[in-house]
Structure formats: structure tokens, C-alpha cells
């Protein structure tokens, strides 16, 4: 099956980051339509499309928007999550650096739908170039009346600010991101209440991933039925995959959900494996690894879930024999230990111990280590405050269960 480039169609063409280019390719037409619509009709269209969050949790986007309290006088906020810290992921980078107006248009539609007049793009510290491009795009959109006060003479106002993070993986978690936006350490909040009712400054806030918001203009202009005609019942639309690691052609690929398998993506599009294939991490570092014999799985949320892993952010990391699998396991847990925010004990202590034990295994001290790891996993499982710690449990468990003898 060939690629279906919806979001990426014009990404990377000459001048694609400019407003002029964007307007020349139908840009802001969906927003103009949305600005004349009843907000509930916008929400219903996104709900009907079946769009699910692309940051990793796959939560239905329209439902999230619908949860924002309706008869509530408090100001609301739209926040685009461009923290993109999941190792192996660089899809949002492609959108915001090369086609920033697509994100801004998606945010504007979301703002109209939930009645927000202020929005933020939270961009990770590692992407200063993206921050600059986004700031320029916002200024350009404001100059031409696509953002700011009284947009297109409709009376609707929406101001977007670009906010640079400080370098913390956990800030990709939406409540930690909100804390960071409030000028604090990025510790996740207890949920509920969810950000839709108690978010930024305690106000109703929708936090959506960049790729998620970038789908919205297409849903508005072409309709939910068109959107649903792509992908599967549970995973409609297209998904951007980033392939990296031990492959010949690392890069960004967009497919309809379910059109191809993980093996096809690697072998037919990413140029095949360099050296000997050892495993594939299908959705970014925090998703459980799959063995070479498990790769004939269709790329959908539901199929990867059934295969015991997750679609995550769509970041496919191909693990070959360039480094020992024990080193891959150790480095994965080292990352999670490093990025554990320290708020809850099971994650803070557990991830640190896991990293240490995997390092010992890598150094050849295997005696009793796997038993110890399993003991620590029992102490963490279901007890961590946020998905980072639970992710560490799943990731460590997969390395132990699938490669126990080979570590």
C-alpha cells in the first residue's frame, strides 16, 4: 500500500512554512468555515470523525473538547503539546518547522469550538528552531488577520503564544505541561479533575498534540465521512510514523491506519534493516519492544495493543545487532530513571533501581538480577502516579520476558 500524505502533503515543499504558500494551498479555509459555525457543530464533526490523540494516549479528541463545561463563565485555553520528548519521535518537528500554519489553523478551530481566546504552543527546549518559526508564523498570521483580535471580521479573537520548555520529558504529560506553563517544576497533577475542567490557572483547558490538531482543518473542510473512509473503525484517518535506528532510510512516513504492517514499513519504506534485526520498539521508547517474529502486526492502535505493545507516538525504533540488547534495555531504563520527575516513590526509586540492575546485567552480572527486577516491578505496577512509571514497568517487563536468556 502506498503512503497517503494528508498532513505531510506539502510539508517540505519550497516555502511551505510561509503564510502565502499555505493560503495558496487552501490554508485557513477550514478555519473561516469554522468561524461561522455553531461551536457544538464543530465539536460534533470532530467527534464524528473518530479522531484520536496522536501524542500516545489515543484519547478521542472530539470527546475531550465536548467535556469542556458549556455554561461556565471562566476563560478557556487551547494548548498545543509540542513537547515531543518521546525518544524516536520527530513528527511534530516536521509539521511545526515546515508547515506551522496547519497547526495554528487547527488551534484556531479548537479555540472556536471550546470558546477560547488564548492559546499556547508548548515547544520543547530542544527545538529552538521550531520556536522561531512558530513565532514568525504567529506574527504573520496576526498581520493578515488570521489570528489576534476580531479574526476575519467575525468578532472572534484568539491570541497564540509560543512557550519554550526547559528540557524535561515529563512535560509531555498534559498536567505536567500545564504546571510548567504556570512557571513551576513539571510535576503531574492528580486526575481527576482533568484539564478540560481544571487546567491552566485552574481554567478549562484543552491540551492536544501537534499532529492531532493538524488533522482538524482537514476534517472540517472535507468532512467526517471522508475522514472515516480512511483507516479502521477504531483508528480512523492517517498516522505519521517516524522510523529510526538500524534502518537504511530513516525518516517520516504517513499512512492510513491499518494499510501496512510494521514489517512492511521497515522493509518496504524505511529501506530495510542494517545488519541483523533484533527487535522493534513500535511507538517510542516507552512502548514495549516486539521481537522479529512479531512484526506482522498492522499499524493501528487496536492491533498493536493486541500484540502486547502500543502505537504510542508512532516512533518506530529498529534495534539491530550494532549494540547488545542488554545495552538497549539499560539505556531505555536509564532514560526513564533520568526523566522520572521524583514526585512519587514507586517511579523515582523503582526506575532508578531498574536502570541499575539492567546495567549490572549488561556488565555480565546476571545472577539473581532478573528476580530482583521482577520484585521491583511488582512494587511499581499500578502504584505509579502517572504513565511514566507504568511505562517503565511495561518496557522493563518486555525486555525481561522476551529477551531474558539473551540479555
Amino acid at each position, binding site marked *: 500500500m502506498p503512503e497517503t500524505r494528508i498532513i505531510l502533503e506539502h510539508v517540505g515543499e519550497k516555502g511551505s512554512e510561509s503564510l502565502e504558500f499555505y493560503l495558496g494551498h487552501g490554508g485557513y479555509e477550514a478555519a473561516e468555515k469554522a468561524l461561522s459555525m455553531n461551536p457544538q457543530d464543530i465539536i460534533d464533526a470532530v467527534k464524528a470523525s473518530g479522531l484520536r490523540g496522536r501524542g500516545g494516549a489515543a484519547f478521542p479528541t472530539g470527546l475531550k473538547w465536548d467535556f469542556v463545561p458549556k455554561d461556565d463563565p471562566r476563560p478557556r485555553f487551547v494548548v498545543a503539546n509540542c513537547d515531543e520528548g518521546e*525518544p524516536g519521535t520527530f513528527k511534530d518537528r516536521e509539521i511545526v518547522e515546515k508547515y506551522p500554519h496547519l497547526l495554528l489553523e487547527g488551534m484556531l478551530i479548537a479555540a472556536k469550538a471550546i470558546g477560547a481566546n488564548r492559546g499556547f504552543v508548548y515547544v*520543547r527546549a530542544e527545538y529552538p528552531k521550531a520556536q522561531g518559526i512558530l513565532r514568525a508564523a504567529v506574527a504573520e498570521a496576526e498581520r493578515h488577520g488570521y489570528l489576534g483580535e476580531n479574526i476575519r471580521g467575525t468578532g472572534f479573537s484568539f491570541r497564540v503564544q509560543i*512557550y*519554550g520548555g526547559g528540557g524535561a520529558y515529563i512535560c509531555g504529560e498534559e498536567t505536567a505541561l500545564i504546571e510548567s506553563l504556570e512557571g513551576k*517544576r513539571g510535576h503531574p497533577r492528580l486526575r481527576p479533575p482533568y484539564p478540560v475542567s481544571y487546567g491552566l490557572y485552574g481554567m478549562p483547558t484543552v491540551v492536544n498534540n501537534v499532529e492531532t490538531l493538524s488533522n482538524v482543518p482537514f476534517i472540517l473542510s472535507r468532512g467526517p465521512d471522508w475522514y472515516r473512509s480512511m483507516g479502521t473503525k477504531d483508528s480512523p484517518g492517517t498516522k505519521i510514523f517516524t522510523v529510526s*535506528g538500524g534502518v537504511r532510510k530513516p525518516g517520516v512516513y504517513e499512512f492510513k491506519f491499518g494499510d501496512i504492517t510494521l514489517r512492511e514499513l521497515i522493509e518496504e519504506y524505511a529501506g530495510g534493516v542494517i545488519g541483523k534485526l533484533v527487535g522493534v*520498539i513500535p511507538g517510542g521508547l516507552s512502548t514495549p519492544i516486539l521481537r522479529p517474529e512479531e512484526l506482522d502486526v498492522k499499524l493501528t492502535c487496536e492491533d498493536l495493543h493486541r500484540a502486547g505493545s502500543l502505537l504510542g507516538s508512532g516512533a518506530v525504533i529498529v*534495534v539491530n545487532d550494532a549494540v547488545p540488547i542488554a545495552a538497549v534495555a539499560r*539505556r531505555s531504563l536509564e532514560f526513564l530513571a*533520568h526523566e522520572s520527575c521524583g514526585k512519587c516513590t514507586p517511579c523515582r526509586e523503582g526506575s532508578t533501581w531498574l536502570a541499575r540492575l539492567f546495567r549490572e546485567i549488561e556488565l555480565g552480572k546476571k545472577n539473581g538480577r532478573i528476580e530482583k527486577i521482577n520484585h521491583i516491578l511488582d512494587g511499581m505496577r499500578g502504584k505509579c502516579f502517572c504513565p511514566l512509571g507504568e511505562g517503565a514497568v511495561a518496557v522493563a517487563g518486555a525486555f525481561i520476558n522476551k529477551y531474558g536468556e539473551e540479555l
Partner: protein
Amino acid sequence: MNEFREKIRALKAEFPVAASALIPAIHEAEARFGALTPEASAAIAEELGTKPEHVEAVASFYHLIKREGVGRFHFLVCTNLSCMICGAYDLFGWMRELLGKEPGAVTDDGLFSYEEAECIGACDMAPAVLLNGERVGPINTREKLSQLLEKLRKEAGNA
């Protein structure tokens, strides 16, 4: 410092709540002074109506906020999975060898420093670095790194 204070006040005015200007103010300090210095922390605290300890507490949470000065060319060397698979540990070793310094230290001429980093989102050009915020890669041979360092030395010499 007065200009810096003015900038903080401007940042403060951009946000619905002043506290949100804290991290942008810290970035401003890094841009002006090369790091979040104790004087900068004190100025930020005063302008935002908080304590320097709070500024430090927030800053210390974030890995990329610079608390000490770095070289004119600062390398964040990614060693996360995709870069590691493509040879990041070799690159890290060449860094140490060619610069003759441990991670975090600045070369005697003030030009270079480097540190290990988590994923920088440049997995399609692994093994990659962020060089003063710009993605560079793949740096998969010692020769490539050596040429890059030479180019930067020339750049510094011409300036």
C-alpha cells in the same frame, strides 16, 4: 541588568498570570549572561514577586537550563536509543578525545563544551548533536567530527 529587568517586566505583561513568565525569564537570562547566574535569579525573583530560591527550585528541575557557563560552541550529544544504535557512544568518545575535556568542562580557549543528552528529536540523522540549538548529523566518523570542530575554530577566529 536594568535592560534585563525591563525585559522581564515585558514578559510578565504577556501572560495572563505573572508566574508564567518565570521560565521565559530564565531563558532570557541564559541568552544574556550565558547561564542563570545568582544575580539573574535575584532579579527575576524580585520582578516576579517571588524568592530566588523558588527561581532556583524551578530551574533545577529542567535539564537544559544552564546554571553555569558553557563554551561558545556547546554540544548536546544524544545517546538515546536511535543515536546509540547508530554509534553515539563512539561519537561521545571522539568528543572527549578531540577536545581533551570531560563532559561539562569548557576547553581552555573557551570555545567548546559538550554533554550527554536525551533524545533531541534528530533520530533521522543519528548519531546527532544539538550544536548551539542546531541539529547536526550524522556524525558517524571521527573525521567528520574533527572537520566540524576545525570549521568552528575557523569561524571563531574570523569573527
